[in-house]
């Protein structure tokens, strides 16, 4: 029932947006990573649309005519989607707010800037915030973004509208966190695959609809909740973004009999774990909320230990027996970090499996073998 409702909404969403566009509403795309305050885009009356497609080898390969293979498959998928013009979202955006985070996503913004066919706002993300001026820089850029959005949309962005938007997105975060956390006691309620799909839906759906929908999902699941004992190994999945459509690994883990009970991924936990606390100055609040008060992505300075400690706590709180690290080929920050994590997890006798992929279709068999072997290690072959 619920699934149907969501499926219909998502199916109709592109035409809904086209209609809105015809009426003069702006569609504003942004990259995942959790450094772009959707609240500002929403408050301007425009529609925030997260560009996060992945998993399909075709767009990633199509981009090879523009950038070499060393640019990660996710970044290439974004370039490819816009080249192929098959996905309606990528063609309908009027503007891109590009967070300048890792070199790969930065390159996508630069390629589109070079092509010159899209309005781009580069939102500089300070890669550290130990010094006072860095947070100030980000706060200032958010103000400039607001001014630009006002001019672009023709709508005034009042403090009231921003506060309202923060409230709405905070509610979304709260609901996603609550739903996700149900898996702590009842992993069989909702598989990792289903949760990630739900999370992904929230990136393209209408926010108000999504909040309402998540609310009903939460209540429905809460009632079904029971503490069940299964012998399925409890797994934490960690990585950068999981592309919308990149469900191969999640499906393989489920088929092999593992339960992914929590994910440490960009568009997931890093988004919904902490709410934005709005104090007097809304821009300072947004800047602090997005840059400081959440688990950083691996490209941030001093992030390695912070990220490990956060992940270790999740492992303990969610009773995780094994960690699956999923990264895309050529991601230099996650790659380096995986060494650290595997040493530290190894020291604590927490099994960790490192998987790499580049969205190609040929590696499914190889991934299956590794995942199955890992599950066999976790549960012992006898059961």
């Amino acid at each position, binding site marked *: 029932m619920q699934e149907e409702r969501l499926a219909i909404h998502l199916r109709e969403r592109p035409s809904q947006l086209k209609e809105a566009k015809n009426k003069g509403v702006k569609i504003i795309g942004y990259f995942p990573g959790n450094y772009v305050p959707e609240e500002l885009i929403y408050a301007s009356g425009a529609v925030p649309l997260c560009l996060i497609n992945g998993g399909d080898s075709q767009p990633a390969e199509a981009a090879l005519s523009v950038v070499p293979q060393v*640019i990660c498959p996710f970044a290439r998928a974004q370039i490819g989607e816009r080249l192929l013009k098959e996905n309606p979202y990528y063609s309908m955006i009027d503007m891109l707010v590009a967070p300048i985070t890792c070199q790969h996503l930065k390159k996508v913004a630069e390629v589109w800037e070079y092509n010159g066919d899209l309005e781009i706002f580069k939102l500089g993300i300070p890669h550290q915030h130990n010094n006072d001026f860095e947070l100030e820089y980000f706060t200032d850029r958010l103000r400039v973004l607001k001014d630009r959005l006002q001019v672009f949309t023709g709508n005034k962005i009042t403090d009231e509208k921003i506060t309202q938007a923060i409230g709405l997105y905070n509610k979304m975060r709260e609901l996603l966190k609550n739903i996700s956390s149900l898996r702590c006691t009842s992993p069989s309620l909702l598989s990792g695959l289903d949760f990630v799909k739900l999370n992904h839906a929230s990136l393209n759906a209408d926010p108000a609809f999504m909040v309402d929908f998540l609310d009903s999902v939460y209540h429905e699941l809460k009632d079904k909740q029971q503490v069940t004992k299964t012998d399925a190994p409890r797994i934490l999945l960690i990585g950068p973004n999981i592309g919308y459509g990149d469900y191969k690994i999640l499906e393989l883990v489920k088929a092999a009999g593992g339960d992914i009970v929590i994910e440490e991924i960009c568009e997931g936990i890093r988004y919904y774990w902490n709410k934005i606390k709005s104090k007097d100055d809304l821009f300072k609040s947004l800047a602090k909320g997005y840059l400081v008060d959440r688990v950083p992505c691996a490209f941030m300075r001093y992030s*390695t230990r912070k990220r490990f400690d956060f992940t270790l706590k999740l492992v303990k709180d969610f009773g995780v027996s094994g960690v699956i690290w999923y990264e895309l080929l050529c991601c230099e*920050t996650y790659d380096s970090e995986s060494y650290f994590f595997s040493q530290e997890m190894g020291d604590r006798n927490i099994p960790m499996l490192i998987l790499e992929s580049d969205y190609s279709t040929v590696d499914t068999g190889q991934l299956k073998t590794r995942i199955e072997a890992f599950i066999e290690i976790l549960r012992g072959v006898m059961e």
Partner: protein
Amino acid sequence: MIELLKLCGFSEQEIESELPRVGKAFNKLGITVEDIERGKQRLTKYYDVELKGVRKALRLIVRELVDALLVRDEGMKKVIYGFMAPGFDLLSSALVTKSRDVCSIHHSWAFQIVVGCIFGKIEPILEEAERKWLKAGMVAHCANLKTLVGPIVLGLYPKPDLLVTTGFLCETSPKTVDLFHELYDIPVWYVDACQDRTCGEYPEPSNRVASSTAKSLERLAERIQEVVGFEITNDMLLEVQDAKGKLNEAFGRIRGLVESSTPLPLSPAHENIWMCLNVLALSIDGITEATEAVDTLYEELQERVAKGLGVVEKEAPRVLATLPMGQTDPRLEYLACEVGIAIVATDRNLEVSIKETSEDPYMKFGIGMQLGAMHMPPAMRIPLLIEGCKKLNIDGVLDRFHVGCRAVAGDALLIENAINKELGIPVLLLEWENFDPRVYKHEEYKRRLEIFKTMMIVNRQS
């Protein structure tokens, strides 16, 4: 070893007094008698060591490496390393001018030239780093970083009091430095600036970005002051910038001569030596010495030009290469000369010119960091490349892309398409690793360079 040091510009007296130190340093590196022989052969083959200017430059480079390896042995109290850290080199020079108790080295330039280019022995260092967190193969991490990780892990660079890097165009280095902090307990610091200039904010440098870069460097200066215990004043920095400005002007004169003369008077392999000279931890006196070396070379090159001498045939096709020259291996540049191609310039030196800069040394740095083509997104880098090609009468572009450097490699295909379209000159797209000699495939590169040369000659004629 004595002959080797003579080829590197050491005087007889200097050899006598320094030989024990050099011997000790080379022992640490595991340099054998065979290596010394090979070093002499490579020096003579790949570099114009008959030119005094080249020898003087090599001397400074060898000296720095020896100092770096013996740093703790010789009781140096304060040791600071920089890596891929423009701006650090300014602070570095200010520090060593002020105090002889501070060792502040910008790794691994000297190491790469001596161990890589001269002795041809950098591969084991790279392999050591690959045993840690840096990968080999198709998704390789930049080998530049491997020449930092390898020596630290092997104990060749003793543990410093501070390790500094920047993240202007690179996430790999800061992440590695973070891992050094976590795994080896080394205090670290980062200098950063957001690369968020958009259209409308080029080509002139942005005040906003300059200001935040300046502040970031200032914080580094404060941190360094804590380590060394004395102040780095603005005047000290301005003095360094002044001296370096003169050094850069001297490079500029050589570059101008190379760009405008045929036959090509100097092999492009030497470009690496200038780049290294620019970032060595030299005191003001040292920078002056370096400037003298470059001036000496300029005179020697002028003589060559007057006599019509060069390293490639006259009227050889003129090539602009992207990226600096190979930094641990001069074979590609040597091969280009053998094949008969004159690499007259690289895009490393393509810059936007500005009328004035700031009086404040940090702002001056912040402004300067925005002028280079390699630091710009393709929307600005490519027009600069095209302009450069036109100005220098370029027949073809060697579009090298260093697979380890995501930021710079990402533009390679855009550059190829743009040059083809706007200028109609041949482009050789070469997948490459600037710091890893293992990628050099002689037969393949020779074939491709020969075809490239033919294409340029044919294109010229038509």
